[in-house]
């Protein structure tokens, strides 16, 4: 229990930290993140430029703060898409059973066969690499775990008597699924969604680092890393700070997810 509390505390602080950065970016950033300043290329961190400047003289701190918006936006929208798809397919598979279940779950198996990062790479290579495309593609390739979880929850809830009572009263399929089953099976989905945000942020950073993610000049932690790698020896602050932000944010969501899992798991409650 002590471990869970520490995880929850640390996770919340880190998540809150990156969220505040993203929400209040215009107020926190001392400079315009797109403002090129040829007088001050590759300045080391100083009081004037808190985290230094990059190869075009842009303020790294300002770009980092605006980058938080991109990363979190991608994380939440991608997870929203994957949870949406996963929940609907999982509910249908679990409740209807039979050949519907068979088709949906075999489709899940097929999707899981592809190494998702390379699938995303391939799809983005065909499409234009834009923020929107990245969010959608990450969402479309990460719903399988949610679908499996939701199906398992649905299987255990569908024969419960309050669900039967709703059916006997003539409740429609949608009402049974979304009013009676979904709210009672939401706990594991919540955990999975929290962990999903972390992995979506990582995938976005990876794609941007490879140059097929968020396109410059829009700042994202991933493409800031890429821009920094050429001058790693003379200006390490260009790489260290975006890397640190990715690390802390992903760690925060993972810790929060772990803590939520422990809190929501009824079996863990007994050894409190």
């Amino acid at each position, binding site marked *: 229990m002590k471990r869970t509390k520490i995880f929850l505390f640390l996770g919340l602080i880190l998540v809150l930290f990156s969220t505040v950065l993203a929400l209040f970016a215009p107020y926190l950033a001392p400079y315009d993140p797109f403002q090129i300043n040829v007088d001050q290329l590759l300045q080391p961190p100083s009081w004037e430029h808190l985290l230094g400047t990059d190869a075009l003289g842009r303020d790294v701190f300002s770009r980092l703060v605006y980058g938080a918006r991109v990363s979190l936006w991608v994380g939440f929208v991608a997870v929203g898409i994957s949870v949406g798809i996963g929940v609907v397919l999982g509910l249908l598979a679990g409740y209807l059973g039979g050949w519907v279940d*068979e088709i949906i779950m075999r489709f899940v198996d097929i999707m899981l066969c592809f190494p998702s990062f390379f699938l995303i790479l391939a799809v983005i290579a065909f499409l234009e690499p834009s923020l929107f495309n990245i969010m959608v593609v990450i969402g479309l390739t990460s719903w399988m775990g949610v679908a499996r979880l939701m199906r398992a929850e649905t299987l255990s809830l569908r024969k*419960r*008597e*309050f669900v*039967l*009572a*709703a*059916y*006997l*009263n*003539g*409740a429609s399929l949608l009402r049974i699924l979304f*009013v*009676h089953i979904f*709210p*009672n099976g939401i706990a594991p989905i919540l955990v999975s969604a929290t962990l999903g945000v972390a992995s979506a942020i990582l995938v976005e950073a990876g794609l941007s680092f490879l140059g097929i993610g968020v396109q410059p000049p829009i700042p994202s932690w991933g493409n800031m890393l890429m821009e920094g790698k050429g001058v790693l020896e003379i200006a390490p602050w260009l790489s260290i700070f975006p890397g640190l932000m990715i690390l802390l944010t992903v760690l925060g969501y993972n810790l929060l997810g772990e803590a939520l899992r422990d809190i929501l798991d009824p079996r863990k409650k007994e050894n409190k």
Partner: protein
Amino acid sequence: MQKEQILEVQNVVKHFDISGGILDQLRFNKGKIYLEKKTVKALNGVSLTINKGETFSVVGESGCGKSTLGRTILGLYPPNKGQIFFKGNRIDNLSPKKMLPFRTKMQMIFQDPYASLNPRKTVRTTLEEPIRFHQPSLSKKEIKEKVEEIMAQVGVDPGWADRYPHEFSGGQRQRISIARALMVDPEFIVADEPISALDVSIQAQILNLLMEAQEKRNLSYLFITHDLSVVEHISSRVAVMYLGRICEMGPTENLFDSPRHPYTQALLSAIPKLGETGLKHIKLKGEVPTPIHLPSGCVFHLRCPHANERCKKEIPELITLDNQTQVACHGVEEKRI
């Protein structure tokens, strides 16, 4: 005296397929590949009629198909064979939409008061739900009044309507379940072991509540239970089930006074009675066979002390005796028992 029938069940058969996916069904035998289907034979030709205003009890041990019977009647499981009539209308093959008008007339009360209410809905939402589907014309105020009226009727303070199920005790929850069933003014209620999960003192209260509601609303009950003393107390007629078949059925008094089927005799002899000394109950040999592989002939012949060759081969039909009870037993028919 001919009474008005409310429900008629004709020769209903319900088998559950438990063979799983196609890969689980594959069998190899002597170089041949074939598919093997496994079914649980829960109901094997059950016929009964329930009259208006009566309590018809179904008793039997666990796994004899009594709950399946209740659920099949309400359309939770489609029967494999046979027909079900509600007030003369066939209801076993209706689409959910066509079934809707009958759903207001037929309700169910479940065994487990902890599983039968949605834990994330307030009592009010739970009680309003049936009305939303069946009487959408009612105004908000009328619905609210109805909820409060029914809650008061079942003995739960209407002021608690906005609480969640976990804030109530088992007995109160069962009252709320009953309230949900009464919301749409049904005529027929299947009560699937409504009191077996409750404390003894609460059991009596709930039984009284059910009987009160019956008197006021002229309800008919199909009362599923394994508690024989309750059956004797509340029901007008009883059916005894064994392995998905009715072995004896008749007016409660006649059946309890002079049970004819060997299984009923053994079952009734197991009721402990005050003032009785020593053990007098009939001991049956063996266990209940699995409903996956039913015994041939009479399903009871493996354990019956009176079984003969005919019982092993021929399935006995229900025959009506002088005292209005119906018995499915070759021994009774041949006047051996």
